[in-house]
């Protein structure tokens, strides 16, 4: 517990306040000030340089009618669902490693799991971007070699009529609007690159032996053990980070910027709210409007956080 200090002694020991000055200055200037500034400028038609005019709620009215913005929210929600799904392989792998009988192999795999983490995210991203390349990309080569390409073409022409897979044309993963979302889904396969596996493993290792023995006595099989012992534990860990993951996906746009470019790729199919904000500010120079988009995103996320803190946390 911090030691209570009276006003008198506080005045005499004013030098103690110096300890927080650097922190306060940094946070105040580079975190708080931009935030406040952003709120202010969302009501203006700022172009980032000269004095601007306050235009009241014009930006927000425009945002309300901005179809690109609405579509971007739709896209990003789909991406959230994708990311939730992408958590599954990590869980699976963690359970598999946890159940190995050899301690040496467990340690070896745990060490191995660190490797994807230390390759810089950007490198992974660009290598994947090369996979998507129509002519030289690995994806298309593999599809051709394994014959899957023909399967996809047949499915396309005879059953689903997507209109994206053609017999002699390399698949345009990042150039066909309809393929953008699937590409964003496939990206990162098999989706075990983050710290998830190690954290789940650590949690699994804290499960006491006795629970397994009791389950065995109850006649619970392999899958049952997963369902009733391991999964609940992992799910509690997941729940703790769920909100962070959702918020990160909602406000993220780096991936889309680098894979698809500033306009979100062909027909803007990969446009997410963050990217639209970036686009309006740094490409179109409409800083004021960008701020208002930022505010809308901010409000959305804040609401989610409050709901999480009030209802989800309390329920636990």
């Amino acid at each position: 517990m911090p030691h209570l200090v009276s006003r008198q002694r506080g005045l005499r020991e004013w030098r103690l306040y110096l300890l927080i000055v650097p922190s306060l200055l940094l946070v105040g200037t580079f975190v708080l000030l931009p935030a406040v500034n952003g709120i202010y400028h969302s009501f203006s038609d700022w172009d980032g340089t000269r004095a601007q005019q306050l235009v009241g709620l014009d930006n927000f009215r425009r945002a309300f009618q901005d179809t690109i913005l609405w579509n971007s929210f739709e896209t990003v929600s789909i991406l959230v669902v994708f990311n939730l799904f992408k958590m599954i392989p990590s869980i699976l792998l963690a359970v598999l490693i946890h159940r190995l009988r050899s301690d040496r192999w467990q340690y070896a795999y745990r060490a191995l799991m660190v490797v994807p983490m230390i390759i810089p995210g950007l490198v992974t991203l660009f290598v994947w971007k090369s996979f998507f390349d129509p002519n030289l990309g690995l994806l298309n080569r593999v599809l051709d070699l394994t014959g899957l390409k023909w399967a996809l073409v047949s499915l396309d022409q005879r059953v689903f009529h997507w209109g994206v897979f053609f017999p002699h044309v390399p698949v345009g993963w990042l150039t066909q609007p309809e393929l953008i979302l699937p590409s964003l889904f496939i990206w990162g396969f098999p989706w075990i690159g983050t710290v998830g596996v190690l954290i789940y493993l650590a949690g699994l290792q804290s499960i006491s032996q006795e629970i397994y023995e009791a389950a065995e006595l109850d006649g619970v099989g392999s899958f049952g053990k997963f369902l009733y012992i391991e999964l609940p534990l992992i799910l509690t860990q997941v729940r703790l980070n769920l909100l962070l993951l959702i918020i990160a996906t909602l406000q993220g746009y780096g991936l889309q910027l680098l894979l698809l470019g500033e306009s979100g790729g062909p027909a803007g199919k990969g446009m997410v709210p963050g990217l639209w904000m970036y686009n309006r500010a740094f490409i179109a120079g409409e800083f004021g409007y960008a701020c208002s988009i930022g505010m809308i995103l901010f409000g959305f996320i804040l609401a989610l956080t409050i709901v999480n803190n009030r209802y989800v946390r309390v329920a636990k």
Partner: protein
Amino acid sequence: MARVVIENLVKTYPEARGPAVRAVNNVCLTIEDGEFMVLVGPSGCGKSTTLRMIAGLEEISGGTVAIDGKVVNHVLPKDRDIAMVFQNYALYPHLSVYDNLAFGLKLRKFSKVEIDLRVREAAALLGLDPYLARKPKALSGGQRQRVAVGRAIVRQPKVFLFDEPLSNLDAKMRVSTRAEISKLHRQLGVTMIYVTHDQIEAMTMGDRICVMRDGLVMQVAAPLTLYNCPGNLFVAGFIGSPPMNLIRGTIQPAQDALQFVETSPASSPATITLNSALAARAAAYTRQPVVFGIRPEDLHDARTFPPGSQGATINTRVDYSEPMGAETLLYLNTGATSLIARARPTDRFEPGQQVEMTCNLENAHLFDPATELVI
């Protein structure tokens, strides 16, 4: 001269609701140069808070603390020329014993030579030489405590402060460390202020003892004075183990003497005819309630110690006895009050047995139940 004078010391803690709590309430105490003063009392009596105010670790809400004639209320702890030994030793875990001892000196920019001299001196005094290179986690509790004491010694302060240093040691270590601290005091002759909740520590170590309760000073005196002449009910019951027997009753006139009559629902309450010394003091309380106090060792089996002129007897029933080897503790009951008596180890007592106990009135006390002061 390392005299510590505490005048009207007050410590208040602001409360969220209601009036502020006074942890230390107008404490006045003078500790003479070279004296070993023990602050003793139950948990929450304010003894630690008082010590910490002397050290400068707690702000003083009111009153003054003066060390060596200088008021130190606003002086930083490091400038008060004091050293403190903590209950949990507070050793720097990542430093060796040598560095722990040297830490304070290094901060004060002592020369390497001087530091080495003082550290080795203290280590020799406390038998720490073999451990100088070790880290605290490689030491036992008793050894860690010695390092904590050593850290205080190297500072050569005017006043040593001890905050319940033996509480975390096992019983045997406590006894030996107690003796070592007393020996240290004799060797160094420095003023020491020692806080404990254990009255045995207080009695064996202190030159004078300050008994505290609820932020107030109950009595300040030498150990035997506190034992033989307690100034109030609290001190009487606190000092001494097993504690003094306290019987509630009234003073009644009888023939040409005064009697103490127990307040009891029983048909025949304990009745003690007071001797002249007690009667003189009790006269003002005729027909009024008083508390009669007598220590276990002043209650004797009447069969072996007949009352005589200074004695008086109480009829009791034995509840049970605890043979301790060197003596037997008798737990008795008058019907209204429970008593403890020390009996010879060879005497045999059965539960339920009726025994008449002689009171040695020379060592008996009377207290006013309202003011709790001795009469």
